[in-house]
């Protein structure tokens, strides 16, 4: 007898396929949570085609704010649970655990039981920080236990093997316990009738796509506590507005995603069913031309189906609101017709840059982007898009030195997305007077919008007077239909420009002042405590 533990649709698929391919004749138990059987009801007879028994535990019944309490409660819960279900873990030949950092994984480590680790989703074994960040927000004590037990990366010695897709791990990833399993390729190994059963279980219909379609694989950010529901709406509105172009948009919802895309994007299509994206190749006759995802692991498995892949990593979850700054900076490069010049970047989100360059409406397609790791690498005759957060004093000094030594062919575009004016120092404030502030205005075109309307400012530095003139005389407008706003940069008179520069200096000074007020308070408090 064997036991599979699975709590997501992907993990369920993984368990089913593994069972059919490698343990067809063995009796198998599926251990899962109430959340999964809500999506795929337990009364469905379909389970019996794969598993001899399905047992359901209620993870929300395990409570405890402190690690020790939580461990005790987990132990108690599963001891009673398996007694009630009359399951003796010692009788099992193998235990396959997807989502090892679940309560069940913790329980197994606690009772010193060996098991086989199955990757949560493809590519995650080498990217455990993604899971850790989510778990930290959802349940801190549980996260701390999972981390100390080595359950995110499967480092615990009780773990015998780690089943994962080795081809989509981070470059250079090595693990002696790793065993390669590619779920998509494994599906091809199933007998036709077995495959049909799997597809039926998940309710996968054959769908005819408009050839000129873009598939968006969604994530359930709000459910995971990664962002608010409003921000989840905004992130997809922005992506559709910037990247869908003439494509017909098709949403493939993450099985746990509750978003009402059909209401938010009336022109789009939302695929029915809560199936893992890995089954998509069996759903469409002609795959859509493009696919877009943010932090979706499924693209690792099915990416080769699409001509155009617009992929954002999980950093985008924190940085998507800065996209207007990126777009505006690149739009200015577009307007300035720097068609043959290399674009360098420093401290920016590379995926946003690359995707905007290649897949938005900018005329910068296929332009190469070079990432600089050191400010001192900025040389003459270059175009650099820069951003920085929490820069140290040295970086501040370096960038000022760098600005001073640049020739007139160079253009620096400061996104200033953290509004910390890291390129400003009191001693060299005249430099800011030479920078051209580009104010990005946002005006609402709809009533219910999720985008704030506060204007944003990026700064462009160049010594070239002709370029300066071109910048100040450039303007553009961009409708973001789904976001419900118009984005625009307008020409400015010299007076307006000067006011904007002074406002920038004032804001930079205020930031610095705030910093010193904070330091002063901390110092005063320390002195008071000592007295």
């Amino acid at each position, binding site marked *: 007898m064997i036991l599979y533990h699975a709590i997501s649709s992907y993990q369920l698929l993984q368990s089913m396929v593994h069972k059919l391919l490698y343990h067809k004749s063995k009796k198998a138990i599926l251990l899962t949570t109430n959340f999964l059987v809500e999506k795929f009801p337990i009364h469905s007879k379909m389970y019996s085609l794969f598993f001899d028994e399905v047992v359901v535990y209620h993870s929300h019944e395990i409570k405890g704010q402190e690690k020790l309490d939580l461990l005790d409660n987990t132990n108690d819960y599963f001891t009673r649970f398996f007694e009630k279900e009359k399951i003796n873990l010692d009788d099992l030949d193998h235990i396959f655990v997807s989502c090892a950092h679940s309560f069940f994984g913790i329980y197994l480590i606690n009772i010193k039981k060996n098991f086989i680790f199955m990757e949560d989703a493809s590519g995650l074994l080498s990217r455990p920080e993604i899971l850790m960040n989510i778990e930290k927000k959802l349940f801190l004590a549980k996260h701390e236990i999972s981390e100390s037990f080595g359950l995110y990366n499967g480092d615990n010695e009780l773990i015998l093997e780690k089943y994962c897709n080795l081809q989509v791990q981070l470059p250079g990833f090595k693990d002696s316990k790793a065993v390669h399993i590619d779920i998509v390729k494994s599906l091809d190994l199933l007998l036709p009738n077995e495959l049909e059963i799997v597809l039926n279980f998940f309710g996968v219909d054959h769908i005819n796509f408009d050839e000129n379609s873009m598939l968006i694989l969604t994530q359930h950010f709000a459910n995971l506590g990664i962002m608010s529901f409003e921000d989840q709406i905004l992130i997809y509105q922005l992506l559709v507005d910037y990247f869908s172009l003439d494509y017909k948009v098709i949403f493939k919802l993450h099985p746990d995603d509750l*978003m009402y895309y059909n209401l938010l994007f009336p022109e789009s299509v939302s695929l029915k069913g809560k199936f893992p994206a890995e089954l998509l190749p069996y759903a469409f006759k002609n795959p859509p031309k493009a696919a877009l995802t943010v932090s979706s692991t499924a693209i690792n498995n099915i990416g080769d189906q699409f001509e155009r892949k617009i992929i954002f990593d999980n950093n985008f979850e924190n940085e998507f609101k800065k996209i207007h700054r990126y777009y505006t900076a690149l739009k200015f490069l577009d307007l300035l017709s720097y068609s043959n010049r290399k674009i360098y970047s420093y401290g920016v989100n590379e995926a946003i840059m690359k995707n905007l360059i290649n897949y938005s409406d900018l005329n910068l397609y296929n332009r190469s982007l070079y990432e600089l790791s050191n400010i001192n690498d900025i040389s003459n005759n270059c175009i650099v898009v820069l951003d920085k957060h929490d820069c140290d004093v040295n970086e501040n000094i370096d960038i000022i030195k760098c600005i001073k030594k640049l020739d007139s062919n160079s253009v620096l575009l400061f996104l200033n997305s953290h509004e910390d004016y890291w390129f400003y120092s009191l001693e060299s404030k005249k430099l800011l007077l030479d920078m051209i502030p580009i104010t990005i205005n946002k005006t609402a075109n709809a009533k219910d919008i999720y985008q704030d309307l506060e204007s944003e400012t990026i700064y462009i530095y160049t010594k070239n007077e002709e370029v300066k003139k071109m910048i100040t005389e450039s303007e553009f407008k961009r409708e973001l239909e789904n976001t419900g706003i118009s984005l625009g940069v307008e020409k400015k008179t010299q007076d307006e420009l000067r006011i904007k520069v002074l406002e920038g200096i004032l804001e930079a000074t205020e930031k610095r002042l705030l910093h010193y007020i904070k330091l002063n308070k901390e110092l005063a408090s320390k002195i008071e405590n000592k007295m």
Partner: protein
Amino acid sequence: MIKKIKDKMFYYAVERNPHILQEYQQYRWNNEELHRKHRLKSWLYLGNLNFKHRLLKIPSEVTLHKLPEKRVRLPYLQGAESNLLKRKPPHIFARDLLSYDVISFDIFDTLVLRPLDDPRALFMILGEKHNYLDFSNIRINAEVQARDNAAVLKGNREVTIFDIYEIIEKRTGINKDYGVQIELETEIDLCFANPYMLRVFNILRAQGKRIIATSDMYLHESMIRKILNKCGYIGFEEVFVSCDYNCSKRDTNLYKIALKKIGDFNKVVHIGDNYVPDIESAQKVGIDAIYYKNVNDAGRQYRTEGMSDLVGSAYAGIVNAHLHNGIKEYDPYYEYGFIYGGLYVFGYCNWIHEYVKKNKVDKVLFLSRDGDIYQKVFNNLFNDVPNEYVFWSRIANTKYTADVNRDDFLTRMITHKAINVIDITVEDLLKSLNLSTLEKRLLDFGLRKEEIINKGNVKQLENLLIENWDVVIERYMGENEVLEDYFINVIGESKKVAVIDVGWLGTGAMGIKHLVEEKWKMNCEVKSLVAASASWSRAANINELMKNQTETYMFSRFYNRELFDSHLNTNKNTNNVYFELFTQACYPSFAGFDVNSNFEFDIPEVENYDVIKKIHQGIMDFSTMYNEFFENHSYMYNIPGYDAYLPFRMVTRNVEFFRRFFSETAFSRGVGADYTNQRTETIGDILNKVNL
């Protein structure tokens, strides 16, 4: 049969008397567990209520007509009020409903909200539409009578809106159909989607769930559907309304009908805000039920009492709906603006607008820094009055009118420094006044420049200035030309301007009046409008008030005296400080022009800017909402100054609110500051100083 008897008993023991109904419902909401285990206790409590309300005729605390409150209400102090109920985020609430086949929603106060804390306030608005005195009372009585008639004729108390207006037609002559049409139109106009439930609804729809609505109501299904559609709820499988079926949720029969129609083999859940019909009755017929606490019940105890009926209901309705629907949690600063400042700023701006229209004022001048938020709200509401933002301040006023206001100059610049929380040296003071040339005369008056100004030496310092008044005048009057040019530019061709300030004596406007009308003779009349007038010296501006040179919105020495007295007599004269928190701005106070004609500013309280932005956002949001809700009922904009002040009076009933949330907020009470050390007082300093 037994059920019918029980229903009848419940009707006579509870429902028939609104005082009993109100208190019994409250009791049941709060003691669900106790009621389940000890029914006898509930019956005893009910017996007691009948004794109190029927025999002794003691009214309930919360009654139909809002009788005066016995209990003093206090602001919520534990943090943000919007965090009080700790509702699940709507997508989590929706997720928990996914295991059901059919989801049933109550309609009013669950799916749909009104910008009124009591549905009966809507009848007052109907009174205005019908131009009929006391229509509200007629409407309430007609419904009671219609229900009584139904009980006799049909054996139940279900009525339709037509039954109600049939009675109204008889009593008033208002055509029945017209009356129904007006009430429905008004409901459609005022009702708005509960943003929390709209999100839940949209999620459920997207998940392909079957959704129905169930309501005990006198409006027919078709009417209810119009309201739901207007609110953005599209896609109900069924809408069950009690008046269409002659039975109700309360008596469970409406649920039974619904179950039969949708198929009672389904797993059904009902969500509603009224405990007995939405929870208990649903559970009786095997429907799972989820209680969604009524937003007005959640916020009622924190809303101020004593406001006029309609404005009070609108104010409380908007605040309760916004803070307690559960879609978002705000912070205490935003809420300070939204709950306690929004109504006043909105009301004041409307009052200014009315004043300038009536008095043919050409231009409105909003004085810095109070005018910052006033102007934003004003321009958000109106676009037909030219207005300017004018850099002015107490310190500027004191300097530039020093030639005619020596006492004011000495009091603000010198005397107040001796009672300041922060120690200021003689040298710093002279420097801040640009009068360092007087340092050489200090010894003549027994002063040293490093001395801290205090009650012991303040007289000598005053004498120094009095004896050298020509130096003072020369210093400030020299900047007058720049100032004149500035005002010529601001005033333009206007022949009459209104100067807007928060208060308290209208000194700023009076100073400008002196300069514009008398000194520069600009052929322009200057009127002073202040939100309120109050001063330690109570009759300081009595002449200006009596001559209508200074007009006040909320109170003054001879207008709304109760407010004037309570403002001055509570919290040891610190109420002005808390009140002015609404109207700070994210830049420093104007201090005048320097010798090169450049603008000079006071110390920037950078550490306040984040707080100020949040307060302003709260004020702005309230104003926008109030404006949008009542744009078809513009008379609702006329918020009496008395009402506008009451939310603030409530929050100042307990200064703990300010100690808890604003202790670190910088606040400069006097003019001029400690330039050397760049310090200003904080609210915490002020509270400590007066032992509050």
